């Protein structure tokens, strides 16, 4: 994690708490993603799994605990991020703070069914698009393109889900399944374009090597038929895996390169924001995953080049 800034003056916004909460949330969300959403869903295919019941139960329990810890930290991160964005005292900062607050209210109201499902879906979509727009506006032009591609992919998938929910609620039905294919293309384009977030990309040999390894590994998994990989793509990331395998392999390579490059250049807050967006995935799954996306985009909005000094780390134009 980035060095914690010293507190400047009494009453000043304490960014260190936000850094710790976002760092902890990212760590917990990644454990939840890899253990609960990925391992336990694939481990059932292990022959004679019952003989490993002890370790399996322990690991599954750890995954569930990581999930609940993520939820707690997510709830803590929302007001902290809203406050940090509000304190920027700019139009986009205020709008983003309102979007975060609105999402928190929607997620709280959706649980007991206080609002119709399509209203909750549309509200979440609006929050994500708002934060993607704000985050894009505070990146350089190439970084903005990456975040807008993610926002577009999320929006296309979420519009499909919202229309389906609205139809079930009696608002009429239209055939919108083409939106899913458009979302698939947008999601893959976002991953392929992600190296644009990192300037001077090709000079990082480690990141390049990691990207190449991910490309080969993911390509091998998909190239061999890759049904498990594809269904995990649908479950975890909201992508149905209908495009040629090579495209997903390239996308995995590009994402790995971007993550390693962000790590290598010590752009930790951007890295955390990016990881949270990836952990949330494309489209509407549940308020937890939507929350990860919302928080990730808010962190990216705060960690861009034009930021409040609290979280600013990127000096690129």
């Amino acid at each position, binding site marked *: 994690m980035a060095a914690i800034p010293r507190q400047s003056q009494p009453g000043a916004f304490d960014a260190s708490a936000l850094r710790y909460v976002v760092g902890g949330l990212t760590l917990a969300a990644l454990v939840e993603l890899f253990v609960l959403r990925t391992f336990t869903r694939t481990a059932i295919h292990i022959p004679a799994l019952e003989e490993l019941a002890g370790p399996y139960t322990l690991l599954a329990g750890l995954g569930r605990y990581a999930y609940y810890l993520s939820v707690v930290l997510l*709830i803590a991160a929302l007001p902290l991020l809203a406050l940090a964005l509000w304190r920027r005292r700019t139009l986009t900062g205020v709008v983003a703070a309102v979007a975060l607050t609105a999402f928190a209210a929607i997620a709280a109201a959706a649980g007991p069914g206080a609002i119709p499902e399509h209203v909750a879906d549309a509200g979440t979509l609006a929050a994500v698009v708002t934060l993607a727009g704000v985050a894009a506006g505070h990146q350089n032009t190439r970084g903005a393109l990456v975040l807008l591609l993610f926002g577009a992919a999320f929006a296309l998938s979420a519009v499909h889900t919202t229309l389906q929910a609205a*139809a079930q609620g009696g608002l009429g039905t*239209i055939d919108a*399944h083409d939106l899913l294919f458009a979302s698939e293309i947008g999601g893959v384009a976002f991953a392929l374009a992600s190296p644009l977030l990192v300037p001077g990309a090709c000079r990082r040999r480690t990141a390049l090597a990691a990207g190449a390894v991910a490309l080969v590994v993911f390509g091998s998994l998909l190239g061999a038929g890759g*049904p498990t990989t594809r269904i995990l793509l649908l479950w975890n990331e909201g992508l149905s895996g209908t495009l040629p395998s090579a495209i997903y392999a390239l996308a995995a390579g590009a994402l790995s390169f971007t993550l390693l490059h962000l790590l290598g250049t010590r752009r930790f807050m951007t890295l955390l924001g990016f990881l949270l967006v990836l952990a949330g995935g494309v489209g509407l799954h549940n308020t937890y995953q939507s929350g990860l996306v919302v928080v990730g985009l808010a962190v990216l909005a705060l960690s861009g080049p034009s930021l409040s000094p609290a979280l600013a780390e990127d000096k690129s134009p």
Partner: protein
Amino acid sequence: MYKRLPRVRRRWQLGLGAAAALLAAAGLQFFDANPATSQSLFLTAYSAGSDPGLDPADGVWKNAVPVQVPLTAQAGTYAAGGGSIPTVSAKALHYQGKLYVRVEWADTTKDESTTKVENFSDAVAVEFPAKSAASVPALCMGQADAGVNIWQWRADSQAGIKDPVDVYAGALVDMYPTKDTLFYTARAAGNPYANPDQGPVQTLVSQTFGTLTIANVQDVRGQGAWNNGNWAVVFTRSYAGADPSQAAFADGATTDMAFAVWNGSEGDRNGRKSVSAFVRLTISGTDLGAGGGDNTLAIALAVALLGGTVVIGAGLAISGYREKAAR
């Protein structure tokens, strides 16, 4: 020394904050209190005014609202293939304590004969958590404490067992001296697909990968029809499950439901298929509306959502860019 006090206090604060978060998470896990809510696709089964029956073309289905469920390739530890059917459209109704599920999907080939060993049948299945499931089961055949109940319809079972001479032109078959089951080896061995009385739907139960078996009671009925490159299949069963390993339904209840489709001409069989994630199925006490095809509100919502997202996203990005330039 005095300068160190704020730093020490900050460490205490961070430590207390971390401890509070860890304890809160433990509390949520202990009480199984999940604050998150599903935002995935859902399907509502409204109360039908008349018995929908088994005909997928019955008029009552026209007013039922479908949900389009994306599919992907089957999960497996080896290359199982599948994935040739991208989406299914599902509807649900209930009538006098019976649940009806109608599944429709595009398939240009009608594959309903499996007499040749190289031919495979079109099929569709819906999966529900078993009545006894303690939690949402694993999609792939359930888990030890949460089994699944699967209803599978097969086109070849509906079409009936074909005589080899009908499939292989010019083939000669010796006359069977008896109709006794003993001489039909697959039927004698209990293979349900060799039983002409089985019907097109099998109900199966499973409690983890490798434990799939036919249920003791076969009480699910179903019928499919292929028209203009589309299959439509209706399943129906009474709310009450025959035993705890089967699904149970009730008015006002919500459960999970997943879909699987086999495309015979693509070589789909067994684990080689297209599958969905779970969607929620709510059995509503509300009567099915009159319908009528007025989609003005839906179209307006679609335009508002798509247009709104473009305006909001692009507008804020430009606004933020200007703020950055002004600094």
